[in-house]
């Protein structure tokens, strides 16, 4: 389900794009702007156990992910977060990849995004991890 607030935002963005494209005749800019819109500002990955729930809360706090490039399920916004006052911070977009606690911890410690094997949720950097297991020196 897509929230009303997102639908309104999409309309405004779409209208501004049409105006911009009409002014300059550069329809290619539409795709470029779309890519920029989807760029997550805070990225992480790890435990698959809480992944759907994390994404729902991230979509409440920040702007929800869209589809594509993220899987359709990731765009879900809980009904409680469609009221006035949400999102809390519309300048933030979170993305969380489901790679398991072990890979998430490794990515977090090394910053090595090549360990992200969740192809549907690419990461350009790792700002945080999710884990159900203790992160130890081992």
């Amino acid at each position, binding site marked *: 389900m897509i929230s009303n607030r997102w639908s309104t935002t999409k309309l405004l963005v779409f209208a501004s794009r049409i105006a911009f494209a009409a002014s300059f005749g550069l329809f290619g800019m539409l795709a470029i702007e779309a890519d920029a819109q989807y760029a997550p500002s805070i990225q992480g990955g*790890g435990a698959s156990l809480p992944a759907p729930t994390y994404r729902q809360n991230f979509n409440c706090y920040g702007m929800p992910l869209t589809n594509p490039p993220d899987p359709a399920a990731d765009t879900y916004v809980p009904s409680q977060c469609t009221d006035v006052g949400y999102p809390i911070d519309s300048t933030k977009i979170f993305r969380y990849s489901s790679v398991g606690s072990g890979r998430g911890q490794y990515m977090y410690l090394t910053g090595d995004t090549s360990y992200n094997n969740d192809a549907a949720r690419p990461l350009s950097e790792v*700002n945080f991890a999710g884990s159900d297991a203790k992160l130890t020196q081992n």
Partner: protein
Amino acid sequence: MIPSLATPITLAISPDTALALNILPSIPAGGTSGLTFSRAGYCKMLTGQVTDWNSADPDFISQNVDPVSGVAQLFSIDPLPLRVGYRSDGSGTAFLFTQHMTAIQAACNSTLYQGAAETMPAGLPANFTSASSGRVEAAILGPDHVGNIGYLSPDFTAQSSVVPAHPAVTANLVNAANVVQPPSPQATTAGMGNVDPPTGTDRANPLNWVPLVVDPVSPSAYPMVGYTTQEFCTCYNVTSGTDVKANGIRGYLTWALSSPDAVPDLVLNDNGFAPLPASWKSAILDTFVTGDANNLQIRVGPVLGVCSGGA
């Protein structure tokens, strides 16, 4: 390493498997399959001592009682192979599962589990079938799945009320106090008990933020529970000259742990999880958002004496 929510580790089967089994009404009702196991029963099942649903092992069927005759009944009259799905990669779900199984396996005289670990132990029984990341659900629901059982977090089961729906149904388990409990948010909260968050300088040790409860003693507790965590950095870089990441993470934590409309907790409940106790929420905000004497608040780096840069 900050706890974000409390979770039960459910034992789940497909609706087709539930239909194929002779599941008698559990008392109390709970879970989403009605299936109920004694401690020795699920211990035997998860150590390979019971490999078919038509087993007459008295521990395995002891909770499947005919309400009229009072006699325990077989789960299946005909042979139906029982296969246990497990994660083959490094998994925190497996960590919580193995820590509990290690603690209770004496109930069925097993030594299969060798402590809490992100991977399953060597020498698994032949009826255990591996599944890669996130695929235990597929092992339970996929082709030729009738008879399969696996461990899953509640958000991948019918206990979750959000979309997309997850059809796997869950079992009730007998806890250390010999009481049947479903993997509900309430029984999960009871399972994590009254463990207090760290105070003072103990807050500087990340390990103190992840209490492990291997086998809860409360009669109200589901027996297989744990906290799942999020790991953040103390210092973050700016993005194009703007504080995006530290600001966003502090803001997110503030909302998730203290929103007056309680929406974050409602979202957790809708997914089958339990929120953190109020004392833990306050301790996390004091330490990592507002900041206390430990100087661990999340911010832009570098900070003299704290970090030389940022993530």
